């Protein structure tokens, strides 16, 4: 198609919108290299001192560790539960399929803040507020819908004749699942694991209500510190590294699993 002025204007608009969308993250990464105690633009000097500080800080290491363990456990639990449920919903086609789907996907549309307020009071009354158990349950709940959506789509796209073919060739139901269904569902399982891990790791909205002093995730620590003391450049450096890791996961996911097609 011939380039026209209107197309050019359209293209420029798209570039500007994308730039706007990504500017905060770009600035975050850029400002991590500012040597000053307070970021200023343009920086007077560049250095890696905040990255060094990040690696040296036991406090931040501890909260990053908490975030990682929490995200890891929640992801495994959420993806497992979501995959089993998706398999049951798609292949079993129960009459209550629609209702369960609405239930599983509800957190994608209902406001998490409202839920977190309710959860906080319930957790407090049964005494699991600030405990690993409370955090893990909450994180499974916010990541399970994302995993369920991806897994329902994934299993719906697996032609059931593959499973029937395996059965007619003598495979028991368990072997049909292990040899055929599971390998074919793997891309979806990887994709939902990647998304669930990122969302859990980076969550601040829900965690900030229910995280306890001994189990403080990195985003929660930064958020509470921000409101009392302002920005610590060390957190910017850590944030830059998290952004970088996130970009890497999304890029690899996109390349291998067509991540964007699965959301």
């Amino acid at each position: 198609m011939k380039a026209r002025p209107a197309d050019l204007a359209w293209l420029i608009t798209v570039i500007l919108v994308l730039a706007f969308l990504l500017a905060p993250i770009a600035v975050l990464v850029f400002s991590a290299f500012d040597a000053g105690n307070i970021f200023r633009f343009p920086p007077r000097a560049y250095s890696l001192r905040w990255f060094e500080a990040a690696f040296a800080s036991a406090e931040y290491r501890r909260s990053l560790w908490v975030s990682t363990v929490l995200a890891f456990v929640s992801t495994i639990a959420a993806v497992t539960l979501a995959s089993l449920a998706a398999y049951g919903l798609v292949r079993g086609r129960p009459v209550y399929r629609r209702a369960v789907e609405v239930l599983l996907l509800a957190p994608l549309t209902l406001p998490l803040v409202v839920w977190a307020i309710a959860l906080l009071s319930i957790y407090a009354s049964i005494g699991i507020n600030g405990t690993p158990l409370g955090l893990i349950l909450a994180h499974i709940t916010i990541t399970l819908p994302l995993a369920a959506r991806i897994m329902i789509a994934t299993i719906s796209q697996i032609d059931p004749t593959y499973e029937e073919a395996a059965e007619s060739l003598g495979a028991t139901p368990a072997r049909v699942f292990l040899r055929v269904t599971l390998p074919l569902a793997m891309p979806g399982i990887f994709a939902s694991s990647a998304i669930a891990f990122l969302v859990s790791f980076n969550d601040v909205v829900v965690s900030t209500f229910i995280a306890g002093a001994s189990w403080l995730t990195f985003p929660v620590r930064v958020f509470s510190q921000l409101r009392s003391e302002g920005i610590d450049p060390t957190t910017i450096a850590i944030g830059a590294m998290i952004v970088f890791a996130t970009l890497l996961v999304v890029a690899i996911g996109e390349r291998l699993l067509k991540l964007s097609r699965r959301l």
Partner: protein
Amino acid sequence: MAATPYLSVHAIQKHYGPVAALPGVDLDVERGAFVALLGPSGCGKSTLLRILAGLLDAEGGAIRLDGQDITGLPAWRRDIGLVFQNYALFPHMSVRENVRFGLDMRRITGAEAEARVDEALALVGLDKHLSRRPSELSGGQQQRVAIARAVAIRPRLLLLDEPLSNLDAVLRTKVRLELRELHDRAGLTTIMVTHDQAEALSTADRVAVMQAGRILQYDTPQALYGAPATAFVAGFIGSPAANLLPLSAAGPDAWLLADGSRWTPPATLAPGSAGVADRGDYLMALRPELLSLGERSPDGLPATIKAVEFMGGDRLVHVDVAGCALTARLSAVDRLPDSREVSLRVPEQLPLLFEAGSGAAARRSRVTNNKI
């Protein structure tokens, strides 16, 4: 041969909601036979096939295979090979792994497994593409792999679900010959589901024509063509299928056509010699290839030519007879009458007559050995 057939299907029932997909089907298949289930889509043939494979549970009836009751057996214990319409080759396995899958499931490993994979691939004429993924193969090759995979388990019964429908027209003719060869060479007992009568008639020993969940006729291809049991079969078999001309008897000598006009045919075609009642409505099956056209004459059927289709070796002439559209197939060298107002001449020895209401044969032709 044993008195009981190799495969015996008895009173198999299946409903989808309130709709009876199979109201109670019986089918016997001899060892080594090649049987086709033929019918339009939705006639229940695929449902029956899936019940035989064990992928669908029948609600009633029994299936016996080689003396064993397999009705309640799960698919994976039946040793029945199934070739799917879309082939269902596992996309995450190579061709060889696909063919070996059924052997893995039977814990056949090592040299024996490899030998049987080779044997199955050779049987379908494949050996070069072993390490490839199915998606790298052409449609025809994928189908061969699917057949090899089903044959490798040495199935007691081979089921083919519309095996040729995903192939192009040229390949289809070639593959149906190969299917039959393969069946004979491997000594299989085969049931093939198809909606394509050419496929069924050219390949199978016996064909079961199905409609609305029932087997209307289970016979040799020759018998289906020459002596269809019902009007549906007559109107389904043949290319183009037989014309069904509605008429009613008006005494022993004459018929009344749909528009009320009277037709006094040659004596052999008259109601009296057909042995039917003086009164009653019938359908006369007229094979297009046995009809001819001529100048108007009193004992021919008065017809008007509506259109002529040139088909290469022959022509299809579409005519109107008393308000009914009929087709005659004429050789391309036959001369057409000059006028559009013609007579349709019916061969005197072959009027198949069916009762208009039930479609049941009112009189069967004595001639069954017509060429197809």
